[in-house]
């Protein structure tokens, strides 16, 4: 048995994992990053549109600050988010963008003078100030009241990931590429690292660490139509679930992005609509204002995706031989804008649709995009059930997105979480809690169990086909656990997935190769993915309300009275075919912003009994004359600064804001 020791084992080399590794390395702890692929190929590279942070540099960003970003994010989450975590996030996001700027990201910059922009279908002139010249620019995104999304053309994630990855190299952090964590080493109370399979040699290696951090990204590939990379299979999330003790939060909260190109599902960024692009139907009619007069194309993603599907169902979709779709029109932005700020979009349209988006319409339809749910952690990123296990980025649910994430808030989250959770992991490694002496029998047992398991898949006794099971799972999820959900279809999905899971336990792998063996990889992954799919489907079935991206046709209202709770899924019995679900209440009385209308989408909801009282408390605080400024008022409503590592508690400098 090969054993590798380190202080911090980071599972994932995307933005979140790399930033965690850099943070802990700088605090003097050794870190190793594991990744299925070279870190720069992680899916973070595909983020196009940008990163939210309330810098308020550009004209349409004026008046923005942490408070506005906070309110937008909480509304976007449909009040599912942990508001304290959102506060930590919005205060750190400007620091994260500025740090990335110092490290080399070529953010687009504000240019002084008059510029033309397309807003709500019309060309308008905006005047940028001299003071803002050369500071970081921002574009508009859905569900935000200010232009807040910093961007690098439409290659934001690429630039960020390359900069971050090169910083990791500069910090001499080893990245063990083409490795896959397939199980955690733990004793039911404490995590000690992971059993890792080398994807080239097939070797199993035990990585022993004081702290283990899962930053393995989303699990979009449990769906057939997804914007996600093919490696986004959620294995990191699944191995946490397979401990039987660590819990996954809100797995039913799955985001569908309005503009996946049709039928391939490849994303064209929300920046297309942020920059002024419109959605049209078969008659080239702009339909979004009919449904959403306030925000039109720039309502939150869950709302826009639903309206699109509703419009298609009403018979207004354009038809093609692949089925129905709608159109995204960015012709009005002009060639010059597309050539400089939407270049990836242009290339994607050329390669995969054979069209020029400056002259032709883009066929689009909503596609699975983002996993709001994930490994449940506290605000420090640690699992409440398994000490020494941390998580950050899309894989985690510390819960800043609730039931719907805003565009641009995810890459921002990856870096912010990397900064904060990285500090907390370093604290943990500094403390005696992280003492890593444990029995070698446990280690050996964990390793042997995986060795036996993998041999079992290849022993020639199984007869089920892994690829087929994968296809069936993905089809079931897309057909029955999509944008519009219904109790009947959901229970059918749960039954189907359970039978697939049972079948997956009889998979037979034809090729005996232990090294680069794609069939073997699919075999063990599909078993894990089916468990995640069951958490999503069962969570969706049990949640009898509609909130954010989770929409139930049979329970169309948001129900704060009964469902202002976070779903927690665990898998205590390995042989079972379904997870066990539990619920954690969100306290209205602790909220800085009690539940209300989001400002877009449905206006009705069932109120929580404490909402009125909490709103009265909040209003009273806002009236208090002894609270001199917004910081004092915020502090009186919901103190959170203590939750931040001391080095990140400072106030962010802004144009037009008094320094105090």
């Amino acid at each position, binding site marked *: 048995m090969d054993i590798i020791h380190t202080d911090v084992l980071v599972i994932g080399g995307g933005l979140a994992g790399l930033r965690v590794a850099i943070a802990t390395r700088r605090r003097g702890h050794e870190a190793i990053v594991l990744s299925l692929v070279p870190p720069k190929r*992680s899916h973070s590279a595909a983020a196009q549109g940008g990163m939210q942070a309330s810098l308020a540099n550009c004209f349409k960003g004026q008046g923005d600050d942490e408070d506005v970003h906070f309110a937008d994010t909480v509304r976007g989450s449909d009040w599912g988010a942990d508001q304290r975590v959102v506060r930590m996030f919005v205060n750190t996001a400007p620091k994260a963008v*500025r740090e990335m700027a*110092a490290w080399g990201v*070529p953010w687009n910059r504000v240019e002084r003078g008059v510029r033309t922009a397309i807003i709500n279908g019309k060309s308008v002139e905006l005047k940028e100030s001299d003071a803002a010249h050369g*500071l970081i620019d921002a574009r508009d995104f859905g569900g935000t009241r200010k232009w807040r999304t910093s961007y*690098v053309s439409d290659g934001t994630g690429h630039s960020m990931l390359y900069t971050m990855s090169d910083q990791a*190299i500069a910090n001499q952090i080893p990245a063990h590429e083409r490795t896959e964590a397939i199980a955690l080493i733990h004793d039911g109370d404490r995590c000690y690292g992971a059993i890792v399979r080398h994807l080239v040699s097939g070797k199993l290696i035990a990585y022993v660490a004081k702290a283990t951090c899962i930053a393995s990204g989303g699990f979009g590939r449990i769906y057939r139509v997804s914007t996600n990379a093919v490696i986004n299979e959620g294995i990191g999330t699944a191995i946490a679930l397979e401990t039987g003790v660590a819990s996954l939060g809100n797995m039913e909260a799955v985001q569908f992005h309005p503009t996946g190109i049709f039928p391939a599902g490849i994303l064209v960024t929300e920046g297309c609509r942020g920059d002024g692009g419109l959605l049209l139907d078969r008659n080239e009619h702009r339909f979004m204002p009919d449904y959403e007069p306030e925000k039109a194309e720039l309502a939150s993603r869950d709302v826009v995706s639903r309206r699109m599907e509703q419009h298609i169902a009403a018979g207004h979709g354009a038809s093609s031989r692949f089925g129905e779709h709608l159109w995204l029109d960015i012709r009005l932005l002009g060639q010059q804008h597309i050539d400089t700020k939407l270049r990836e979009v242009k290339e994607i349209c050329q390669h*995969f649709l054979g069209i020029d988006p400056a002259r032709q319409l883009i066929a689009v339809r909503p596609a699975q995009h983002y996993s709001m749910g994930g490994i449940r952690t506290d605000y420090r990123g640690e699992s409440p059930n398994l000490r020494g296990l941390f998580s950050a980025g899309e894989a985690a649910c510390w819960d800043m997105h609730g039931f719907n994430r805003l565009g641009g808030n995810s890459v921002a989250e990856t870096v912010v979480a990397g900064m904060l959770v990285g500090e907390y992991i370093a604290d943990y490694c500094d403390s005696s809690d992280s003492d890593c002496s444990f029995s070698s029998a446990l280690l050996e047992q964990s390793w042997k169990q995986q060795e036996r398991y993998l041999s079992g898949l290849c022993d020639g006794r199984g007869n089920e086909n892994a*690829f087929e099971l994968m296809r069936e799972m993905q089809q079931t999820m897309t057909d029955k656990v999509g944008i519009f959900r219904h109790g009947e279809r959901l229970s059918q999905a749960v039954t189907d997935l359970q039978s697939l899971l049972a079948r997956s336990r009889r998979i037979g792998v034809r090729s005996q190769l232990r090294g*680069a063996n794609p069939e073997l990889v699919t075999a063990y992954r599909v078993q894990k993915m089916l468990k995640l799919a069951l958490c999503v489907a069962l969570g969706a079935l049990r949640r009898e309300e509609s909130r954010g991206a989770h929409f139930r046709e049979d329970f169309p209202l948001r129900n704060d009275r009964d469902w202002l709770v976070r779903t927690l899924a665990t898998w205590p019995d390995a042989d079972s075919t379904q997870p066990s679900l539990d619920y954690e209440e969100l306290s209205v009385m602790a909220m800085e912003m009690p539940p209300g209308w989001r400002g877009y989408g449905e206006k009705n909801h069932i109120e929580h009994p404490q909402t009125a009282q909490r709103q009265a408390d909040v209003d009273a605080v806002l009236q208090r004359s002894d609270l001199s400024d917004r910081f004092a008022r915020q502090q009186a409503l919901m103190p959170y600064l203590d939750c931040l590592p001391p080095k990140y508690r400072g106030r962010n400098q802004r144009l037009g804001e008094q320094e105090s």
Partner: protein
Amino acid sequence: MSDLIATAGRRIRLHILRHNPQDPESQPHMQTFELEEADGMTLFIALNEVRETQDPSLAFDFVCRAGICGSCAMLINGKPGLACCALTRELPDDITLMPLPVFKLIADLSVDTGEWMRDMSERLQTWVQGSELERDLDRFEQTMEPQLARDIYELERCIECGCCVAACGTAHMRPGFVGAVGLNKLARFRLDPRDERDDAAFYQLVGNDDGVFGCMTLLGCEDMCPKQLPLATQIAFLRRKMARQGLKKNPEE
């Protein structure tokens, strides 16, 4: 709409170089897979179909399948390119696929570009080096001219796919050559005012035959770059700067 041009029904043949160095029994050989072309089929779709229905052991790499991540470069009918963006309808009935040369073979069409790129990054120190790296994050960012930011991004669009290296005469002969990918990166950092290295420092890194003087100006790199980066211009420019620097350092030469 050209995605409505039906191409379904054609039989295409993929001739693939098979070899798995991990398997002692394996000998490099060509293997042919025949399949029916589907509408809008890319090599990403075709190769997955072969793996799922004909040979589960076929190895290749895809990640984003959208031309963004650079994982799937291979020789397509002899030319380096990204397989995910290659539409079969733009290719003949017979398609030959080989792994990228120069890089270490993992199996079949999968090569280790990651290790090569990391080594290049370490040798060239492809990160901003300056005193402003650790700033007070509460304060305004340093300003930058908008055009300069765009110019830097132009060079930063490289996705480290390896096509330029596979297409480079020097890289085939000199294992240490940093390739257009490496030279372009240094051009990017040279342009960036946040990076405080001067030409003398850059000369130390690329003022030799593994660097900018190894380039034979065959232009394969720029022709094959899937992101259409201006590689030849950047290399020529860097070479002039480094040659001048070289003269400064060794005036007698």
